[in-house]
């Protein structure tokens, strides 16, 4: 399956397209944050009218109101995109590389290498992640770099398992044996013959991993472990929950939460669409009442490709 065909298939999945559009808007927001944000998110706004409270609901000056420190919520929200995306992408790229490498090495070489690597994976998999991250960040100190490292270094286990199982099935295939029989080195076999087969799966999993990383970052920040020098949605919620919930300051509480949901939903929609393309088993099944087919006639389900039918 070449990239063009995959793109065509992707464009047929409405959920995936919606997700992709959402994500592009979000990324653009992050890139142009300084232009889009009306105020400095780190600076408290002078409250000129003494009749107004510092923690104020939306008005014409502040479309999402002010927080209890007098900062513009909307501007914080816009700058929060950056932390989420940076942590999400950086951590998931890290875990993608670690996971894919471990998965490929374990799957391809088998034997002791595999046993050792997969035991490590299983070990990390059963250790509850969030508590572990909590402990590590508490000890190492808060900061965006530590956040990325912790999420990236602990979040590659699924990727490794997925890639390994895929590599195992690919390496049993005849074209790999053929490559060996014409004298291809292990390196060449891995790069030229195995990697192209597993890249689609790696990508679809990596997209989901970005969402996981973003969710994890927000949870940790909410629990008070966010970078104290940066505006992040999780940190906003941490403050809001501590100080604003009793005062029903919904404008402070809801926007960052929905922003997180928006980002992760967009990624999940994309990831799900990719997975449907990658896993052909999700396409056919035998339970179907033929009379319904006659009734529906066109456009139901995911039809077969011509080559599949010929076989």
């Amino acid at each position, binding site marked *: *399956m*070449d990239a063009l065909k995959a793109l065509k298939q992707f464009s047929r999945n409405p959920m995936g397209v919606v997700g992709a559009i959402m994500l592009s808007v979000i990324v653009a927001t992050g890139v142009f944050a300084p232009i889009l944000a009306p105020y400095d998110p780190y600076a408290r706004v002078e409250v000129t009218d003494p009749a107004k409270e510092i923690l104020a609901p939306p008005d014409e000056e502040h479309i999402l109101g002010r927080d209890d420190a007098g900062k513009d919520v909307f501007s914080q929200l816009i700058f929060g995109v950056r932390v989420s995306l940076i942590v999400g992408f950086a951590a998931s790229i890290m875990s993608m590389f670690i996971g894919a490498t471990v998965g490929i090495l374990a799957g391809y070489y088998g034997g002791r290498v595999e046993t050792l690597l997969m035991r490590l994976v299983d070990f990390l998999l059963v250790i509850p992640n969030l508590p572990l991250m909590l402990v590590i960040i508490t000890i190492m100190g808060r900061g965006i770099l530590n956040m990325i490292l912790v999420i990236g270094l602990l979040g590659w286990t699924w990727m490794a398992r997925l890639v390994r199982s895929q590599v195992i099935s690919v390496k049993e*295939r*005849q*074209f790999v*044996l*053929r*490559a*060996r*029989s*014409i*004298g*291809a*080195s292990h390196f*060449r076999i891995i790069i*030229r*013959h195995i990697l*192209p*087969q597993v890249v689609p799966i790696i990508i679809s999993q990596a997209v989901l991993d970005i969402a996981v990383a973003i969710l994890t970052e927000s949870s940790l920040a909410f629990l008070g472990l966010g970078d104290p020098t940066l505006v992040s949605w999780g940190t906003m919620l941490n403050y809001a929950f501590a100080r604003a919930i009793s005062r029903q300051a919904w404008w402070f509480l809801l926007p960052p939460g929905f922003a997180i949901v928006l980002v992760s939903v967009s990624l999940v929609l994309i990831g799900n669409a990719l997975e449907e393309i990658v896993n052909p088993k999700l396409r056919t099944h035998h339970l179907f009442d033929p009379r319904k087919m006659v009734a529906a006639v066109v456009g139901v389900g995911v039809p077969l490709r011509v*080559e599949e039918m010929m*076989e």
Partner: protein
Amino acid sequence: METQPILQVQDLYKYFPLPRDILRYLARKPARYVKAVDGVHFTVSKGEILALVGESGSGKTTVGMNVLGLQKPTRGRITFAGYNVAEWAEGLGPSLGVERLENSGIDLARMSRRERIMALRERALMIFQDPYESLNVRQKVYEIVAEPLVIHRITQSREELEELVRSALETCGLVPAEHFWHRYPTELSGGQRQRVAIAGALVLNPTLIVADEPVSMLDVSIRAEILSLLLSIRQEQGVTILYTTHDLATAGYFTDRMAVMYLGRIVELGPTRDVLLSPLHPYTKALISVIPTPNPAQRNKRVILHGEIPNPTDVPQGCRFHPRCPIATDDCLKLDPQLRELTPKHEVACIHA
């Protein structure tokens, strides 16, 4: 035909250890083995086509893999072009007296392990059963055929590379080559894919080709084409072919000699015509009798063997075929028959033959 042996397989054994059960391990019981190949020898002359026929589990494919040095024999010696393949592939250094690969002037003794493996891979190649599986669908036809040339650094020039690929493709009947080489395997029919696979081996000018069931996945109407392609390659380039198959009928059409395998052993070996028309071993006889023929008038008596091929971890004592043999006697339980020449060049491993 010239009878200069190019490939000699002597006393080949290939045992695969079964994954060790923890309890057995703790109890220090010996590891168990799948005896895939259990004492095989044969010789192939230069330019000859030998069929290795047998049912699944007979060990025919394993023999092929060992011949190519893709697996290491448990015991025994495979000599290809004067060199011990197992040591060659493993890089353990040359054995036997022959120091030079014939006509090539290559001194194997001076090569590194990797170089030795490459020298073997360049000369002995494999064609696989399933052209849908043996080609990487993400490579274009050109890349598939050119890959061996690139790996073996046959040429540096683009033009020469193109020329070699073109000639290999056209030899294999994909004319004009330009029409095919920008395509992906999925855009080709089964027969065309198998031609691509053959071209991908031929491009290196191999001395030996191991063809593992090259037509069994193809439609009947295109099998003959592929078989005659293999024949013409032998004719024109003097390639030696080891054809492993379960299909006696296709083997009958284009091989010179035939070795019938059962449970890791050769039970009958002889000129193809002789083996098919006057089989000596009861297993061969039964096998030939049950192959369906497209001729209702010819429905002759089938000799159906009951049961299935025994598990290769527990090979029967004596003659390995005796539990299913229609003519077995008490002697068969005791004696493990070896191949003996009954009629000229026609060998059989049965005490009753």
